[in-house]
């Protein structure tokens, strides 16, 4: 069977599976729709959380980022896993004990205020839409590369699938499809990684392989060889990195705290039966996530090594087939600056911006010509780092079914995250805004209908953002984590660990965190990107890491405001006492 038909087969089968599960697990009540009835087994929830959490960025982009930034990529590895420690130790069990449906539910009740609830809803919606636009784009890119349809049609397919299981099944449908999607995506990630590690080092376990000797007869460790090869070409050592220590520190912190504050992740812990189950479920989630996250550094490093070795000083006509495939997809380019017909891969950009190909024109070696202004350095090769995971099976010359598997896995990663995000958006609208703020007298049936309607609207908006991505989408993933770190995390944390934090303090803290973080990221990423250099950054912290300062500001403002305003009412203090104790989980509140 050809690779192309295998891809159709694998993707078709996986989609049929997701829809089948959705039909079997339809939501019948708001409890089903928002939190899957609150009876999900901790291991099942852990797996669903892993799929929910690992997005198109984890599956497709992370290994590529690590491949091209080496040590600097550690911020994602530590940041996106360390957050689960915070979640397990500081938030999940208490929020489960509190026992309602949404994150704004907690903030609204703990800070005895509709205003606090609405501020939380605003933060949640900004975070979730920023995130979801990237997921739909990821779906479109996989479709375009592997299924020979346009990006737009791919997005529409993706929307239709998510629509079926998120709108019908709610959290219940999403939970069980996410379990299936986790299995697809982790299998798709690990299989090529085993092959690649085995080919390079003779050890199939990538975590060990990356620390082993290469079997190319050089007698060098894989990382030693990579450091040497890159330094010979003028790059920095792979294992050193280029970001400043303070920036690495701030980015890691913002990603960790942001992870713990992401509503679509937190809400997964509302679905388990009790507080102690929430603790263990966070542990399982990290087990399933760590399988991918400890593999990614090896995938990245071997991909970089394979890439350099198959490109450097290679004459274009004898370049590997994948090189020309991806060039045809606009994601690789070569400009023969010195006219020797061979590709030189060096530091710096080969030309300015992303490639703009001259229509139909090819150069003397057969390469596609470019209109971009040339740069003065010696680098001749442009490569989009997002292709590394997708191109890996081809670079390592793996069989067609592995390529098909990777396509299905990339779609599973993007769809599962999109569905989780759609759910928190729709429950924020139907539950927090409609039921709890503006129309407390709606019946349960009306609320469920409103939730489905809101999910439908959110799918359409997400699809629109996927088809017409605002130029800033790729630029502002930092928004989602930064805002979560600077708003929701501190508010929830203080709500549990401080009995004295009051309404005024929490609202002031969230607003300051929100405005500061948006302003800082917006200034450097959207309004004045030219100024985005280390010299202009506050304390040397890049926009990616500024959420950690936003968090500190939130804490500082909240603590000072609460010291000068009215104390917390006695019944809310009782509520805090009640959520701190595991016994009695299931009761909605302590009074």
């Amino acid at each position, binding site marked *: 069977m050809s690779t192309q038909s295998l891809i159709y087969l694998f993707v078709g089968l996986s989609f049929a599976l997701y829809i089948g599960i959705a039909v079997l697990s339809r939501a019948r009540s708001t409890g089903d729709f928002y939190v899957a009835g609150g009876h999900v087994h901790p291991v099942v929830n852990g797996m669903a959380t892993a799929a929910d959490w690992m997005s198109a960025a984890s599956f497709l982009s992370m290994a590529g980022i690590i491949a091209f930034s080496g040590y600097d990529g550690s911020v994602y590895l530590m940041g996106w896993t360390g957050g689960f420690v915070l979640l397990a130790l500081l938030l999940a069990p208490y929020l489960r004990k509190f026992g309602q449906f949404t994150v704004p539910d907690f903030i609204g009740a703990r800070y005895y205020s509709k205003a606090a609830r609405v501020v939380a809803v605003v933060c949640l919606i900004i975070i979730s839409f920023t995130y979801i636009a990237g997921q739909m784009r990821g779906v479109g890119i996989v479709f375009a590369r592997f299924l020979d349809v346009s990006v737009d049609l791919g997005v529409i397919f993706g929307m239709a699938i998510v629509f079926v299981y998120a709108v019908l099944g709610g959290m219940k449908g999403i939970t069980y499809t996410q379990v299936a999607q986790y299995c697809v995506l982790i299998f798709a990630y690990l299989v090529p990684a085993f092959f690649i590690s085995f080919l390079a080092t003779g050890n199939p376990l990538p975590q060990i392989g990356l620390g082993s000797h290469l079997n190319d007869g050089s007698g060098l460790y894989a990382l030693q060889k990579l450091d040497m090869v890159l330094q010979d070409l003028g790059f920095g050592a792979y294992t050193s990195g280029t970001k400043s220590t303070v920036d690495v520190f701030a980015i890691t912190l913002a990603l960790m705290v942001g992870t713990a504050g992401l509503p679509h992740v937190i809400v997964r812990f509302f679905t388990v039966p009790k507080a102690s189950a929430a603790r263990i479920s966070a542990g399982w989630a990290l087990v399933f996530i760590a399988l991918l996250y400890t593999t990614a550094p090896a995938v990245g490093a071997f991909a970089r090594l394979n890439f350099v070795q198959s490109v450097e000083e290679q004459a274009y006509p004898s370049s590997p087939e994948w090189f020309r495939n991806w060039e045809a997809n606009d994601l690789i380019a070569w400009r023969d600056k010195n006219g020797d017909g061979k590709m030189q891969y060096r530091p710096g950009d080969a030309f300015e911006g992303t490639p703009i190909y001259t229509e139909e024109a090819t150069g003397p070696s057969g390469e596609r010509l470019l209109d971009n202004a040339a740069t003065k350095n010696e680098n001749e090769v442009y490569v989009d780092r997002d292709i590394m995971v997708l191109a890996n099976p081809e670079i390592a010359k793996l069989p067609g079914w592995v390529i098909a598997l990777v396509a299905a896995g990339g779609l599973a990663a993007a769809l599962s995250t999109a569905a989780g995000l759609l759910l928190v958006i729709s429950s924020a609208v139907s539950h927090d805004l409609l039921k709890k703020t503006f129309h407390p007298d709606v019946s349960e049936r009306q609320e469920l209908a409103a939730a489905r309607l809101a999910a439908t609207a959110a799918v359409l908006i997400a699809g629109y953002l996927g088809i017409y991505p605002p130029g800033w989408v790729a630029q502002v993933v930092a928004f989602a984590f930064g805002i979560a770190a600077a708003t929701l995390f501190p508010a929830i944390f203080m709500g549990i660990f401080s009995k004295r934090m009051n309404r005024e303090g929490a609202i002031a803290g969230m607003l300051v965190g929100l405005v500061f973080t948006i302003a800082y990221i917006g200034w450097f990423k959207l309004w004045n990107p030219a100024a985005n250099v280390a010299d202009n950054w506050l304390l040397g912290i890049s926009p990616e890491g500024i959420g950690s300062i936003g968090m500190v500001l939130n804490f500082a403002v909240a603590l000072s405001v609460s010291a000068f305003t009215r104390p917390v009412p006695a019944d809310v203090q009782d509520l805090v006492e009640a959520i*701190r104790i595991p*016994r009695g989980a299931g009761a909605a509140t302590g009074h």
Partner: protein
Amino acid sequence: MDENEAERARAYWRANLRLVGSLLAIWFACSFGAGIVLREWLDQWRIGGYPLGFWFAQQGSIYIFLVLIFAYVVLARRIDRKFGVED
């Protein structure tokens, strides 16, 4: 809640804070300490082919995070039982 029960709840909370505090100290030390601030210094040693600080940043801290959560699961359950507040 009567006075006894309230006192027990406070003692439970103090024990819980001590546990969470010590686990977070390890969490901080392995990631921000070994993986970031002390990384260059630790890189003078190797673990297999990995420079040690690099290993902490890209592998070790993740394994330690896992151990921390499961240690919390076990130790927190023990405290819950000791104070009679398990769910």
